[in-house]
């Protein structure tokens, strides 16, 4: 891909990696030149994470080579030398919260003064300050990292990469936890890096981001590099086609299929997701006539660290999907967590079908009929070492157990199977630990766990975060279908505007208050963005929420 005659800065040739029966990477060739920003896209499980781990020097390929500037890469595990070439900013922050910015920047490589072995704090702070200044960042080196925002933590990680003199920076899903303004600033930083001759490998699920800042893009599918081309020569559809393969229906293999080396691609005979979802949810309790208020929230207040709420009231009717969106600390996630009983409020009432839900008690809220898809699936969504079926049925153990509380693994697997297939969950079987699954499949487990107990209200927080395009559509569709078929209400709290397509109404929060409401789809993206920023909307005219507040 490099047009110059020089060897590429990073060159990967014929890289193979197996995990048991799964071939995660099959002969991948990739090269990145100095000053180039290469986008790497692919669906969940396509091999992106494996490639990241090989490029970061954390795992060794079974075959193939990694070369830096024409010379063989350092030994795998020799992280210090590896970092001089490539530094990775991982999806999950690798920052020690109780240490200062400077200590985190020089983690494991503290500069020493005259005496080797003794840390020179002065040198560490000075060098951190210098790099910050050089690149136009302004975070004081002494600040403890626990006081920083997600965006600032990412800056610290980028500075760490630069401090080691890395000539290539690998950004793994860098925008997943950022709000829109922060994304714009990140892009400026990436351009700054490439202009200074640093190579950037940019991994993302958001194709529009790839088109915005990457000169070239590479697509992985089932461990193979299926496309590598300049972004200017491609359309968004071309990329999606390359990621999904020839079969355009977003129906990946069924739940218990093992990814065999011999069967790449997608089986053609799988039931369509819509059909299976119907089968899974026919028996739901649809005793609320459509249109009745399922959820009533009145005057909710909270001073949660995730975002304050100051007197929020809203309604969700049966069969209705209500979207709630806003900036990162606008209180959207707080509202969801309070309604789901995952955290207490300081005031206000949550009523489900006319009955008051006791605040701050998740188990009671679930018994009342509130399903909860938490924001951070790793933290709250599943138990990593337990099996797929056990995780999915965790919300319904009481129903599956007999009178003595005895629970048969087979009954668990049987109850989990229809949900797993409705969501096209890929695992090696009902007993496979969820920790071994890819991110998208883990999210499907979390969603299945919620659908399993037939809630009359589903509270979902950013249910599609870090999930590939096809799975995203499928997860959203399944929520919309449940609402339509079982009459459940859905409270979809998200900052991904593209999630809002399934909503009947969208409520926008600004600083813990209902700012405005969009009552008719389709929702205009620009208007939504204006509203989240707190700008009044000329198109909607009079604003009922604002009038009520005065």
């Amino acid at each position, binding site marked *: 891909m490099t047009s110059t005659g020089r060897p590429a800065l990073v060159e990967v040739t014929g890289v193979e990696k197996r995990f*048991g029966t799964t071939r995660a990477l099959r002969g991948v060739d990739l090269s990145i030149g100095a000053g180039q920003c290469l986008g790497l896209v692919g669906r969940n499980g396509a091999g992106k994470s494996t490639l990241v781990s090989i490029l970061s020097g954390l795992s060794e390929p079974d075959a193939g080579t990694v070369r830096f500037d024409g010379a063989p890469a350092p030994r795998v595990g020799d992280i210090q030398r590896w970092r001089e070439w490539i530094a990775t900013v991982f999806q999950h922050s690798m920052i020690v919260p109780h240490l200062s910015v400077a200590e985190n920047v020089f983690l494991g490589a503290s500069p020493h003064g005259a005496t080797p072995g003794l840390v020179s704090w002065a040198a560490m702070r000075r060098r951190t300050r210098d790099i910050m200044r050089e690149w136009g960042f302004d975070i004081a080196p002494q600040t403890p990292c626990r006081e920083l925002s997600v965006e600032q933590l990412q800056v610290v990680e980028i500075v760490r990469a630069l401090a080691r003199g890395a000539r290539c920076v690998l950004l793994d899903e860098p925008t997943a936890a950022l709000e829109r303004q922060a994304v714009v600033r990140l892009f400026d930083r990436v351009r700054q890096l490439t202009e200074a001759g640093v190579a950037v490998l940019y991994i993302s699920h958001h194709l529009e981001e790839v088109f915005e800042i990457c000169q070239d893009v590479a697509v992985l599918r089932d461990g193979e590099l299926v496309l590598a081309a300049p972004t200017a020569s491609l359309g968004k559809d071309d990329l999606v086609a390359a990621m999904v393969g020839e079969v355009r229906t977003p129906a990946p*293999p*069924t*739940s*218990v*299929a*093992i990814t*065999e080396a011999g069967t790449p691609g997608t*089986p053609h*005979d*799988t039931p369509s997701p819509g059909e299976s979802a119907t*089968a899974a949810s026919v*028996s739901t309790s649809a005793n609320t006539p459509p249109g009745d208020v399922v959820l009533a929230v009145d005057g909710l207040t909270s001073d949660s660290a995730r975002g304050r709420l100051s007197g929020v009231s809203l309604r969700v009717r049966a069969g209705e999907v209500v979207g709630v969106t806003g900036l990162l600390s606008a209180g959207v996630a707080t509202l969801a967590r309070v309604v*789901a009983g*995952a955290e207490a409020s300081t005031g206000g009432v949550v009523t489900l079908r006319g009955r008051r839900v006791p605040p701050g008690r*998740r*188990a009671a809220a*679930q*018994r009342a009929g509130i399903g*909860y898809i*938490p924001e951070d699936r790793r*933290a*709250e*969504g*599943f*138990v*990593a*070492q*337990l099996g797929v079926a*056990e995780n999915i049925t*965790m*919300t319904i*153990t*009481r*129903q*599956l*157990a007999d009178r*003595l*509380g*005895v*629970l*048969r*693994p087979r*009954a668990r*697997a*049987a*109850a989990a*199977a*229809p949900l*797993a*297939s409705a969501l096209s969950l890929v695992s*090696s*079987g009902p*007993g*496979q*630990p969820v*920790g*071994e699954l890819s991110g998208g499949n883990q999210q499907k487990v979390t969603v299945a*766990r919620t659908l399993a*107990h037939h809630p009359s209200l589903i509270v979902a927080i950013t249910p599609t975060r870090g999930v590939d395009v096809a799975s995203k559509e499928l997860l959203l569709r399944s929520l919309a279908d449940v609402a339509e078929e079982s009459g459940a209400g859905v409270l979809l709290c998200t900052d991904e505007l593209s999630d809002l397509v399934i909503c009947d109404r969208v409520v926008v929060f600004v600083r813990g208050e209902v700012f405005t409401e969009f009552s008719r789809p389709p929702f205009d993206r620009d208007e939504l963005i204006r509203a989240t920023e707190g700008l009044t909307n000329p198109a909607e005219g009079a604003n009922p929420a604002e009038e009520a507040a005065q």
Partner: protein
Amino acid sequence: MISNQAPAATATAAPDGPAGAVVSRLRGMNVNVLREAALLPVLILLIIVGTVVSPAFLTVSNFAGIGQQSSALGVVVVGESLILLIGGMDLSLESTFGLAPMVAAWLIVPVAAYGNGADLSPYLGIVVLLAVGAAVGLVNGLLIVKGRLNGFIVTLGMTIVLAGLQNGIVKAQSLFNLPTAFGYLGAASIGQLPVSLIVAAVIFILTGLFLRYHAAGRAIYAVGGNPAAARAAGIKVERVKIGVYVVGSVLAAIGGLMEAGRVSAVTGQQGYGEGIIFSVFAAAVIGGVSLKGGRGNMVGAASGVILLGIVSDILDLAQVSNYWIEAIDGAVILFALFLARIVGGESTAEER
């Protein structure tokens, strides 16, 4: 509802064919079997060593002896394993192991034998013993779960308080001449088989089945593996945790009853004075119960107990000098731990 969905389950397995399902199942089983049998080579090695060391080793009476000596410890290990599984730890089990039988015996034996004069029937005494265990566990559980105090510190403090009570109520005397009914569990035998061994085995098996097949048992793994996820799935995390602390302490009290029967006395040294908590943790951890919670099972815990029992028996038979016995004991434990880790491996899935 379940019966309706059963056919769908087979349908999802179908596209991959039965062969795939069988393969994946075998793979899963192999891993489990390997992990659970990780101590088997060590146990076989120890039995060979024992046979070489003394002709008295490979005899029914010797093994009955090992069983009787280990069963009290074993019951406490079951309790500690449950607490470790929910991601907690309880140092005070060793003091409960001494205090519960001491309180019971104190209420049973006459004043002349340093009792308090209540002259309780031995059966009521056993009820008191269980109640003492439950009370200690409840206090620990409430302090740790509701009071949000650190489990290590709470139970460390509790250990010392309980041991002090154990000596305080009887002015540091030992209580002998326990009624037969009170000592039955620890002293009696059916044929060559000690009753304590039978009871301990039943407790291990029932707990193992409970953990595998009971809704509450599965909740223990969920709570220990990821408390936040368990809470989000509607499991009453606090209730499960407190319940496990109570059960753990009750098991420690039962272990104490066995020990009192075996030595036909309750001494001030029983439990805390002997420092049995070290062996309890060693057995559980050697047996693969994770100190981080959510991982481990009763097969492992039982093999840990058996291993410790055989080691101390061999050291006895080899007439190792008392001065050296602890050093060798400790070294064997470290070695077993190391070997079990190599053979059993540790899945890195949770760290990724």
